C-alpha cells in the first residue's frame, strides 16, 4: 500500500475535490463523512462524535494500514447577523468546525507520533484570518482552527509530524448558496482575480502542503483570489 490519507468531509464540495486530487497523486484515501464518499474506504461518521471518529480512524488503519496524512475538511457554513445567532446555532457551528477538526486530530496524532512521521492539513477560511460580515459564528470557528493548528504545529515540532492550514477564500462549492452575496458580481468585482476560488485550486494547496514536508510548520496558505492581501 502506498501513502494513505484520511480526509474528513470527503463526500462533497471541497472535501471531494481534495480526495480527487489526492487520488490522482497516488494516495489511498479513507473518507470520513456523514454520507458515503467516493473514496477507497468510505466511513460514515459524524465528526462531532469523538468516539465515533476514533473508531473510524481505527477501521482505516485496519483496512488501509499506516496513515500518512490527515486533511480536515468537514465543516458547515451559515450567514446570520450576530444578534440572530441562537445558542444552538453557535454551539453547532463550534461542534462541527473546530470540534470536528480536533476530534480527527486527536484520533490521528498518536498514530503519526508513533511512526515519527506524518502531515496534517487543517482547513480554515480567509474569514478566520480577516473576519467577515454576517458570519460571526463561522468566522470564530475558523479563527479557532487557525489558533489550534498553529499551536499544535508548535507542540509537535521535532516529532516528524507537521501541521499547517489552508485558509481559502470564497469558493465555488455547494457550501455557498446559489444566492449567496459571495457569488454576486458586486463582490467578485472587488477580487483581484475576479472570480471565486475553484475547489481544485484549494485541493492544490493541500497537495502542496502534503508534499513540502517538514519545511513548513504552523503556516497558513490562503488561496483566496486576492480577497485578503
Amino acid at each position, binding site marked *: 500500500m502506498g501513502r494513505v490519507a484520511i480526509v474528513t468531509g470527503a463526500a462533497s464540495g471541497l472535501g471531494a475535490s481534495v480526495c480527487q486530487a489526492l487520488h490522482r497523486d497516488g494516495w489511498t484515501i479513507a473518507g470520513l463523512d456523514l454520507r458515503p464518499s467516493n473514496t477507497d474506504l468510505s466511513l460514515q461518521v459524524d465528526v462531532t462524535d*469523538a468516539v465515533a471518529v476514533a473508531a473510524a480512524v481505527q477501521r482505516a488503519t485496519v483496512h488501509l494500514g499506516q496513515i500518512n496524512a490527515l486533511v480536515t475538511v468537514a465543516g458547515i457554513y451559515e450567514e446570520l*447577523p*450576530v*444578534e440572530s*445567532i441562537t*445558542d444552538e446555532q*453557535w*454551539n453547532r457551528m*463550534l*461542534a462541527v468546525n*473546530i*470540534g470536528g477538526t*480536533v*476530534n480527527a*486530530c*486527536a*484520533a490521528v*496524532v*498518536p498514530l503519526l*507520533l508513533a511512526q515519527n512521521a506524518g502531515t496534517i492539513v487543517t482547513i480554515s477560511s480567509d*474569514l*478566520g*484570518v*480577516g*473576519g*467577515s*460580515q*454576517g*458570519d*460571526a*459564528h463561522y*468566522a*470564530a*470557528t*475558523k*479563527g*479557532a*482552527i*487557525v*489558533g*489550534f493548528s*498553529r*499551536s*499544535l504545529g*508548535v*507542540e*509537535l515540532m521535532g516529532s516528524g509530524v507537521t501541521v499547517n492550514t489552508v485558509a481559502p477564500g470564497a469558493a465555488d462549492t455547494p457550501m455557498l448558496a446559489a444566492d449567496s452575496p459571495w457569488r454576486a458580481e458586486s463582490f467578485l468585482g472587488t477580487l483581484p482575480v475576479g472570480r471565486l476560488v475553484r475547489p481544485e485550486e484549494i485541493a492544490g494547496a493541500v497537495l502542496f502542503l502534503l508534499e513540502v514536508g517538514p519545511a513548513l510548520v*504552523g503556516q497558513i496558505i490562503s488561496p483566496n483570489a486576492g480577497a485578503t492581501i
Partner: protein
Amino acid sequence: MTSNSSPVRIALVALQDPAQRTVVVARLTADGVRVAVLGQPVDGAVLAVDPGEAMASVQRVEDELGALSLLICDAAPPASARFVDTDPVDWFAGVQRSMFAPFALIRAAVPALRRAGDSRILLIGSGWGATQLKDSTALAAVQGGLVALMKTLARDLGPDGIIVNEIALPAQSLEQPALASALAAAVSYLAGPNGAAMAGQILTLGRGGELRP
C-alpha cells in the same frame, strides 16, 4: 483620552483577571466614564452585576446607569495541557465554554450599544500570541476564534455606529508595571474619540517576542 465630549459614558467591564479589571476600571473612571463591572465589585465602579444571564446583566446596567456605550470583555482561559494527553471531548467543552461567554455577552449588549450610538466593544485577549505558548492548543483556538469574531463584528456593527477592536496582551499579563500603564492607555484610546477610526484592529501590547506573528 475620553472627555465630557466622549461618546462613551457608561461602560460594562467583564474581565476575568482582577488586575486587568482594576486597571481598566481605574482608567475609565479617571476618564469620566461611569463603570459597571460583571462579578466582584471594584474600586471606582458604580455598579457590580451578577455574571449570570447575559441579557439580564446588560438590562440591569441600562436600568440603573443609562445607555450602555462601551463593553469590555474577554474569554476565560481553558485548561492548559499537551494536546496528545487531552481527551478531545474535554478539550472541546473547555473551548466551547470559553468562547460562549463573550459571544453571549456581546449578543446581549449589541441592541443597547446600537441604541446608544457611537459606541464601542473592546475584546481583551492575547491575539495570535497564544499560538507561541506551550501546551496551549485550546487557548490558541479560543484566542484565534476571538480575533475572527472581533474582525467580523467590526464589519457587521461598524455601520451601526459600534466600533469593535481587540487589545492583545502577552501571557504574563500585568506583572510588568509598564504593561498595566499600556493597557490603561490602550483602553482609553480605543474607548475615546481618538479611537474612532480604529475598527477591526488588534492593538498588541508588549515588546513582541512571544506575540509574533
